[in-house]
């Protein structure tokens, strides 16, 4: 996997909202079939990076090449081809409330293929079955639980069988068990279908469970503080920013009430590290 041509290549990416720079000269590659997770503190630019990669925002400079095409400079038909090659699961699901779940999943197929209606119906049901919602196609989005909404959103993102799926905070708002089930789903889809996942997350258990590689964004330098296997970073990295993230260390400036540890649960592992 490490030797293959990258499926996503980001170079010299600088993103800003007006004069406020969020990311500066960010560069990284994603190899085909890997589960790549963007991690960092809230406000470090994870979602901003994701929005630029899926074409919702335009960067100040840099390039984002996916499947050989630069989404930053592409326009018209070329841009459409890039968008058809990616699927996005938004943090809240963003399912269309006026359509059933099955119709939500079938919408990209209706728009971009010549498949007959019954074929679209079957494909939608198959996608839903793959995410464990085979019996819920006729439900409206408002009738689904939070976890089911996320699963349905993943099914819709997979409708056109894109090689790349972007997931924005898939575990946000979910209980640990549902979050773990979603992790298993992501891993099984990656292995069975060879889909490349780019995930924005700050859920440590999920990150450690499913990520092949992570990049840690730093809100101070506006760049990448570290990248690599999250389990290795967690076990061996001595970078203070990495340690702060994985060990859930509270900054000195935040007042810690008496009786409350200044470290999170991860610090229990510190003694085991060399």
């Amino acid at each position: 996997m490490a030797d293959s041509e990258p499926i996503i290549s980001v170079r010299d990416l600088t993103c800003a909202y007006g004069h406020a720079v969020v990311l500066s000269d960010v560069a990284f590659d994603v190899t085909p079939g890997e589960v790549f997770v963007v991690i960092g503190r809230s406000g470090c630019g994870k979602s901003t990076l994701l929005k630029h990669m899926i074409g919702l925002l335009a960067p100040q400079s840099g390039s984002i090449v996916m499947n050989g095409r630069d989404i930053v400079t592409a326009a018209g038909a070329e841009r459409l081809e890039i968008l058809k090659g990616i699927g996005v699961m938004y943090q809240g699901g963003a399912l269309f409330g006026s359509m059933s779940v099955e119709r939500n999943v079938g919408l990209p197929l209706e728009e971009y293929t010549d498949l007959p209606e019954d074929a679209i119906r079957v494909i939608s049901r198959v996608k839903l079955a793959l995410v464990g919602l085979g019996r819920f196609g006729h439900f409206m989005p408002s009738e689904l639980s939070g976890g089911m909404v996320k699963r349905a959103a993943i099914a819709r993102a997979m409708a056109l069988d894109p090689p790349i799926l972007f997931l924005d905070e898939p575990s946000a708002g979910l209980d640990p068990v549902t979050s773990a089930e979603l992790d298993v789903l992501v891993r099984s889809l990656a292995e069975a279908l060879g889909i490349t996942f780019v995930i924005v997350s700050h859920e440590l258990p999920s990150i450690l469970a499913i990520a092949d590689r992570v990049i840690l964004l730093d809100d101070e330098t506006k760049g990448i503080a570290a990248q690599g296997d999250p389990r290795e970073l967690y076990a061996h990295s001595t970078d203070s920013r990495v340690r702060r993230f994985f060990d859930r260390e509270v900054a000195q400036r935040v007042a810690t009430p008496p009786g409350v540890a200044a470290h999170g649960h991860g610090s229990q592992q510190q003694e085991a590290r060399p």
Partner: protein
Amino acid sequence: MAPQSLNIKPARLAPVPEGLALSDGPGGERIFAFSHQLNAPAVSLLWTPAHAALADLGGAAQSLTLNVSAVDYMDGSGMALLVSLRAMAKRAGAKVQVVGLSDQQAHLLELAEGAAGMDDAEEAPAMQDRRGGKGMFTKSLPELYASLRLLVCFVGECSLVLYESLRHPERVRWKDVILSCMAVGVESMPILLLIGFLMGLIMSFQSVITLERFGGEIYVPNMLGLVMFREMGPLVTAILLAARSGSAFAAEIGTMRVNEELDALSTMGISPVRFLVGPRILSSLIVVPFMTLFFNFASLIGGALVMLSIGFPLVTFTSRVFANVGVADLVGSIGKIIVFSLLVAGVSCLRGLRTGGGASAVGRSTTAAVVSGLILITVADGLFAVLFYYFKI
């Protein structure tokens, strides 16, 4: 082309697109041999012919073999085709086998099993109560009774809120009332004045055209004053209120319902009716009489313009406008508009509170608020007409 190794005669079937070879094997076996790619473009060409080729399954053919060993690439569309063909064959009572799948593909096929042939009965029961309100004519008797009960409760709660507002004005959220007054009254002035002016102009003009045949143009100001102050002023103002502010009330409260903000109010012990509906009804009651007067005034300006254009002096117009309009007409007009504003604001807020789930439910509530408001205004206007007639107002 039939696979050479199986030594099978080609089936005598209709031509199929490239990527699928049909053949019949010994013992009633039907063989589908797929090749190249099974992606969305390929499946869109293969779907119908492949299903048509299974039409006689169970009769001429007793088993189906789906051979994908020559397929270079298969995605979800291809998987769905296999699932659908397999389900169709099983329904016909034929034995089915799929050959040439990798372990992962076989696992996915197993996961997707049942997706194609799923009957509605096997699906999870939908939660009807979260799908939003039904129309009046599609509700059952118990549902109608429940709706009526809710309506009565709402009217009672609103009446209580208004009564408490009079008894304890210090408890009223006057900031919200004033903001609502700005939105309902001040911001609607431009459209209100424009429509009032145009209505006065058009009515006067049309009346002049008709009455000048009888030399009766002099009575146009009398007609205008009577019609506007007694009928059109309150009615059109109320229609504008329903269209502009009623829809906004329903949309705002409906969106709050969808975002669970109303639930948050309830769990804080704050009544949504007192917090949201009360200020809106109060603001409507306060500003709408003034809106009506402004509307009437604008219409008189329109009428004056017409009369001036046909040579009547302004003093003639002003002296004749109020010749037939008495205090009773004015009071009756104010009384009407107060009732109209109560109905419009009340039903709009009720529609907002009864919004179902999702963005489309907000749209439905908004539409229902305007339609209900218009119906109630019209019915109330009719009742007032009868009332005024019998009490000789």
